[in-house]
């Protein structure tokens, strides 16, 4: 029973990692850029929702605040691409990596200065409620995380493979120049993807902050999400979720059964092992460029 309980809380954690990784893979899949600030986006989304919901700030109804904060983060993602990244179009990926790392620092500072540096929890109507199927004790928040994550992953998977705009995003990533020739507005597509990824980050943030406290440095969690994305295989949506779940499950199990200190190292150790033995990740999509 104890073991099952661990597994379930690990699953919930893993889903949050998976959601961050999802936002990260969305961007990578469509624009070939790597957003090293995705964890900070998540943190910002959580704080925006806290700002709308919690009674010491605006005190709005939770069910109104969630769509609002998703919209705000979507706009933030879109504007971030439109205002900053669009000017870097055509520059090397290294400078985009460095730029997003710097943005992460700025977002962290902004969140700390606007809301608080203290760990804050989101006030949700379902806080503390539990489900008890067959002797297990499941927090509603944890169940919600798993359900929402599964739905989102499915929706995005279908979005990329079935819809016109999803295909346009793939095309824009595969060959920018050819996509231009086909009449795809590559730059606007990029901004759209960033907006989408901001929305996913807001969802992840809301789910995370309803489960536990959040503070500006929580954004560093994003690094675990990169590990998740790389384990699953960059550019694969189900891979991102799987990677997140693996990390989420390994952490509590290593903490419970392993020697001290192992649980912190385990996610990155898995990442390094995957990179060494199966460099493309579990759902590998890379191929070597041939001359």
């Amino acid at each position: 029973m104890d073991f099952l309980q661990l597994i379930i809380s690990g699953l919930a954690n893993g889903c949050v990692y998976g959601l961050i990784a999802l936002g990260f893979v969305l961007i990578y899949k469509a624009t070939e850029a790597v957003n090293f600030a995705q964890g900070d986006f998540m943190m910002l989304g959580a704080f925006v929702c806290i700002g709308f919901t919690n009674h010491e700030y605006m005190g709005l109804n939770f069910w109104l605040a969630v769509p609002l904060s998703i919209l705000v983060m979507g706009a933030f993602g879109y504007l971030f691409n439109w205002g900053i990244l669009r000017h870097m179009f055509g520059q090397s990926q290294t400078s985009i990596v460095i730029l997003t790392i710097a943005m992460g620092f700025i977002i962290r500072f902004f969140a700390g200065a606007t809301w608080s540096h203290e760990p804050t929890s989101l006030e949700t109507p379902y806080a503390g409620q539990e489900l008890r199927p067959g002797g297990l004790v499941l927090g509603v928040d944890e169940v919600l995380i798993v359900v929402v994550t599964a739905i989102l992953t499915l929706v995005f998977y279908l979005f990329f493979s079935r819809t016109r705009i999803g295909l346009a995003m793939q095309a824009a990533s595969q060959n920018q120049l050819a996509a231009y020739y086909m009449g795809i507005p590559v730059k606007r597509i990029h901004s759209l993807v960033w907006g989408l990824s901001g929305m996913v980050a807001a969802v992840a943030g809301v789910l995370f902050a309803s489960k536990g406290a959040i503070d500006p440095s929580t954004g560093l969690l994003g690094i675990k999400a990169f590990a998740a994305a790389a384990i699953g295989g960059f550019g694969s949506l189900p891979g991102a979720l799987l990677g997140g779940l693996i990390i989420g499950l390994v952490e509590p199990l290593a903490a419970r059964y392993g020697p001290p200190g192992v649980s912190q190292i385990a996610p990155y150790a898995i990442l390094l092992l995957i990179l060494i033995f199966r460099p493309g990740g579990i759902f590998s999509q890379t191929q070597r460029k041939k001359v």
Partner: protein
Amino acid sequence: MRYVFKTSYDADIRLFKHRAQAVWYGLLLLLVLATPLYFVAIGDAYLLGEITGVLILAIAGMGLMLLTGHTGLPSLGHATFMAMGCYVNINLLGAGVPWVVAFPLSGLIAGAFGTLIALPVLRLHGVYLALATLAMSILTSDFVVMAEPWTGGIAGAAVPDINLFGIEINRYATPYKFYYLVLFVAILLVWFYRNLLRTPTGRSFTAIRDSEISARAMGINLTRTKATSFFLSATAAGLAGALFGHSAGYVTNETFDLVMSITLLLMIVIGGLGFIHGAFFGAIVVGIIPVAIANGRSFLATTFDVNINVPGLESALFAFILVCFILFEPMGLYGRWLKIRTYFELFPFYRKDMFKRQKSYLKTDRIQ
């Protein structure tokens, strides 16, 4: 305006383009050699210690510059190699190995270690290298704690003094000797770096940065060349780490953290990616910013009675400066200097787009 007529292939790769350039660099050398005289005159060597710190950062920056600026591979884990160099140096010195042997060895071991880690990832896209080095950088602190017999764990380890052919060198007791030692290492590395860039190896680095496909088409072995670059880069970082240890006097598991790795990367971008000068300019900026912020803060507090005490302000300001540089001056401080110089050299024929690079349209290397 000066025309340099090249009449032989050797003239194309000469160390100095023309005599005036050699004279200017000679003057610069004289200046850095004479700097301690000023501090002897005022009798306070505190600032000299700061300058030495900047030089050490510049050495690490040169290492990263070779990898990121000249080979085009981002690394977020160079603090790890600094840590490696530092601890190897401490342990070798502790085992009684003379400094002249221990110091280069600490760099080489850090280099070999780095190459071993990076080798599997180097076959992939640069993003994977960034990720692997990021993971390594996060793990550094944990590994330092785990390797307690050699590193002192959380309690930290004291760094022994340098004994160079019977001359005792300590950062605080003999700041001038320490400055000259660091300066010697820095100049040696610059000389090596400059020469490396005109060898076939060095030029194949640049070829890989500009286009991997074209580099392969010209018969460059990508993985081997990238590994060479990584080895040299990590070696320089290891040497810088050993010197950093001597400069700090005491290192713990938190000395070489992720922030340091990221600072190194930001440093070379601000300085100017792809120029040796950039590593030095960046190191100077990184050295100045904390001092400037502290001064600005005390100025505001005493003059306007405004107390700004927001945590994270330093890194946010630093990040903001960086974003501005990437957006408005991607070539960094050195690039700006080049533009200004070209403007005056060509006056009045300078055009705005002279330094504009051709845009590259991305293609994925994934199968979809």
